[in-house]
């Protein structure tokens, strides 16, 4: 090789190497930071004796490989002909067994019309009970007073939340939570201070308050922001953690594995999401995520790869395909969206899936795992819909806003809800064959076994159209449902407990929580999907106080009622 050629080859190689090095982050291989570490459960290894009662689940209706849609007798209404911000945000719902008859009941919030309880009479027959008023956003079903009966909490537009205390049967009495005076939007519950009872965490939606109350609301004592209300039995004592909040979502995960929940606030617009950590010195902000959603609409946590570590999913707005017709519907609206300066901005306008690496840091892998784009997404939740042992994802979407989408018929961005099937490698595939592509503009959404046959059904609270129940008629798999009860604790449904089901096909991790997604309450009954050929070995329960119980000799397709 002559010298001239060698010189130029060397120069060429140097240029390419320098450019490759500069583009390192762009070319990083997906999943490189993914953790394979095991569960990090905190607390002492005390054992707790429990009584386990098993009830056989009812036989499933013949499977069709699809979900069957049922309209429910409730529609969230706006009260005006044209939907404008922030009525576009609609309302949530919650699912739990309110009357202890073994069936999951549904509570749906409303804006202009009354809220509804749909009492589950079995076989997907519901009896509707109207509650006195609407004007509600989030719904939580939670035993507020520790009397063993599940109460209902509604957050409201411009007023503090109301609680409907359960008197048994279908009787409720409406009241306020003493000491809770914040005009809050998103709410969630956990034993945040570790004293055994459930505390309320609540975030305001400042933009909505400003629109309805004027800018002065900020200067009132109970104006916007983020609150932690400590449950002291007779009353709640509030602490304002953040002066500003645009909270559409709140999650209370234990991200650092110290046995105490952190507070994750999902803020709309440019206001960054926040994560608050409690230590001996009080609450402080931490930043575990390098990238977050821009307009965070919902949070959910789930162990999508069954490695014992929960992943964090947050939904945002991004067209779910690159079809020009879809993009044309989004473009004019996006051109109006305000964007802060780009430098140092951690926010991206697409869904994020935070996956913890070996060193404990999180990395967004939503794009790598095909869950970055699900439309104008609202409630998004994990659940093992096809009972193959892996958590799938369902996202409701769509938007109605005459001011934003004046160029679309009725000001509505019509989108199909997205069902995303976990392929067993923690990557997701769109599953239109499941028949879950409703276009009814869903807002709140939750999953539960509504017909007692062992699979997860889905209920969505739509804006302007009847709520929908999607009956799961997918084929294959088995299930185990678990109810936890703590008879000697004010936290009667063991919110914060973590469960591990060990099977021959792997171990599945779940936890008991009050709310997730967007404004939506979760059932306290835990669902495990089990692949066809797998056998159950044991169920491990780590109670909120760290004590552990193990149940063995379990049969599939049963509801276990585990009482401590």
């Amino acid at each position, binding site marked *: *090789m002559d*010298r*001239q050629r*060698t*010189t*130029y080859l*060397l120069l*060429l190689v140097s*240029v*390419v190497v320098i*450019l490759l090095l*500069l*583009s390192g982050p*762009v*070319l*990083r*291989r*997906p999943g490189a930071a993914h953790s394979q570490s095991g569960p990090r459960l905190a607390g002492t290894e005390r054992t707790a004796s429990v009584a386990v009662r098993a009830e056989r689940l009812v036989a499933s209706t013949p499977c069709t490989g699809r979900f069957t849609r049922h309209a429910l007798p409730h529609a969230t209404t706006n009260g005006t002909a044209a939907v404008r911000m922030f009525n576009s945000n609609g309302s949530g719902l919650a699912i739990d067994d309110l009357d202890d008859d073994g069936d999951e009941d549904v509570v749906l919030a409303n804006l202009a019309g009354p809220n509804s309880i749909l009492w589950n009479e079995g076989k997907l027959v519901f009896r509707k009970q109207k509650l006195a008023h609407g004007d509600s956003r989030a719904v939580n079903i939670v035993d507020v007073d520790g009397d063993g009966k599940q109460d209902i909490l509604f957050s409201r537009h411009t007023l503090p939340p109301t609680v409907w205390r359960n008197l048994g049967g279908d009787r409720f009495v409406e009241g306020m939570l003493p000491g809770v005076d914040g005009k809050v939007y998103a709410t969630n519950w956990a034993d945040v201070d570790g004293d055994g009872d459930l505390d309320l965490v609540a975030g305001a939606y400042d933009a909505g308050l400003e629109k309805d109350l004027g800018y002065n609301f900020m200067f009132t004592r109970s104006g916007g922001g983020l609150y932690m209300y400590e449950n002291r039995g007779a009353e709640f004592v509030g602490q304002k953690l953040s002066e500003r909040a645009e909270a559409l979502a709140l999650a209370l995960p234990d991200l650092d594995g110290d046995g105490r929940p952190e507070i994750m606030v999902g803020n709309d617009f440019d206001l960054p999401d926040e994560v608050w950590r409690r230590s001996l010195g009080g609450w402080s902000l931490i930043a575990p995520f390098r990238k977050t959603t821009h307009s965070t609409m919902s949070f959910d946590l789930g162990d999508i790869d069954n490695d014992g570590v929960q992943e964090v999913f947050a939904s945002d707005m991004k067209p779910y*395909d*690159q079809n*020009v*017709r879809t*993009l*044309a*519907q989004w*473009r*004019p609206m996006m*051109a109006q969206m305000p*964007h802060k300066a*780009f*430098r*140092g*901005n951690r926010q991206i306008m697409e869904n994020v899936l935070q996956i913890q690496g070996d060193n404990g840091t999180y990395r967004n892998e939503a*794009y*790598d795992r*095909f869950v970055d*784009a699900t439309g104008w997404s609202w409630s998004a939740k994990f659940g093992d819909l096809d009972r193959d042992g892996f958590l799938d994802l369902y996202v409701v979407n769509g938007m109605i806003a005459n001011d934003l989408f004046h*160029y*679309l018929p009725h000001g509505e961005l019509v989108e199909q809800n997205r069902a995303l099937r976990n392929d067993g490698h923690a*990557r997701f*595939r769109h599953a239109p064959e499941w028949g879950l592509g409703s276009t009814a503009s869903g807002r709140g959404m939750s999953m539960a076994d509504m017909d007692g046959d062992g699979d997860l059904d889905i209920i969505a609270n739509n804006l302007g159209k009847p709520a929908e129940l999607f009956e799961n008629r997918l084929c294959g798999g088995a299930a185990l449902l678990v109810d936890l009860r703590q008879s000697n604790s004010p936290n009667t449904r063991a919110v914060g407990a973590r469960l591990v089901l060990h099977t021959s096909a792997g171990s599945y991790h779940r936890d008991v929580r009050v709310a997730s997604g967007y404004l939506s309450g979760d059932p306290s009954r835990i669902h495990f999907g089990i692949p066809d050929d797998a056998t159950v070995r044991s169920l491990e329960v780590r109670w909120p106080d760290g004590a552990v119980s193990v149940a063995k000799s379990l049969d599939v397709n049963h509801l276990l009622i585990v009482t401590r």
Partner: protein
Amino acid sequence: MIGRHWESGGSFIRELRRDPLVQLLRPREQARLLLITSALGLVLWGTLAWQVGMPIWGATTMVLSLLLVPGARKWRADLRRHGVTVMVLSVILTMQGFHSLEHVAQWVQYHVLHWQPQRSSGLISAANAEWVHFIWNWSVVGIVVLLMVRGVRNPWAWLMLVWSVAHTMEHTYMLVRYLQLKQELGLLGVPQISAQGLPGILGRDGLLSTNPTLMRICGRVPGLTTTSRLDVHFWWNTGETLLLAAAAHRFLRTHLTRE
């Protein structure tokens, strides 16, 4: 051999002077005029962009027009000295060089200055339009074919042809999508909304990244389906410039010696 080659800076400079590309460039020949027009251009650019408030793309276009003067003189000299083929080669090398500089500017705006993607459109942002990219890239293909017909045929030139055709295919796909989106926006009654900036075949949200079969088989292919549009085109142009330079070097080495 390499060690010996680098043992003194002086011998390297001598080698460089003998390089065919540098011989074609003849840096000393137009240096004075180039320096004067560059200095004038810089002053003009600063005045127009900072004092008059002209958009950066406008000021940059004015400066480029000024630089056409030494450029035209240089290409005329090339024509007289070496003939049409070398002159065309000289023109395309210069133009592609400037085009690549524009992509480097975009790259710096996005990765170094952390501007928003839609703001990171280089120095002549008005030229960052689908039509301009489409016409420019087809022109490059045409010129490469012309050069090959006129004897610039070597392995680098063939590689350059393949690369530039692939690059142009991507821009053709993007132009088709741009026109479709424009039509859709017109149907919605909002024709004033920009339809620029759609992903192409490669990169993040590109055609390959949304292909179900590919998704099933390989998931995300690092770089190929994950890189941003801005980076994709930075790489296309970096490759194109390097291949063009290599092809020109190989051709000129024999051609200039023969002269």
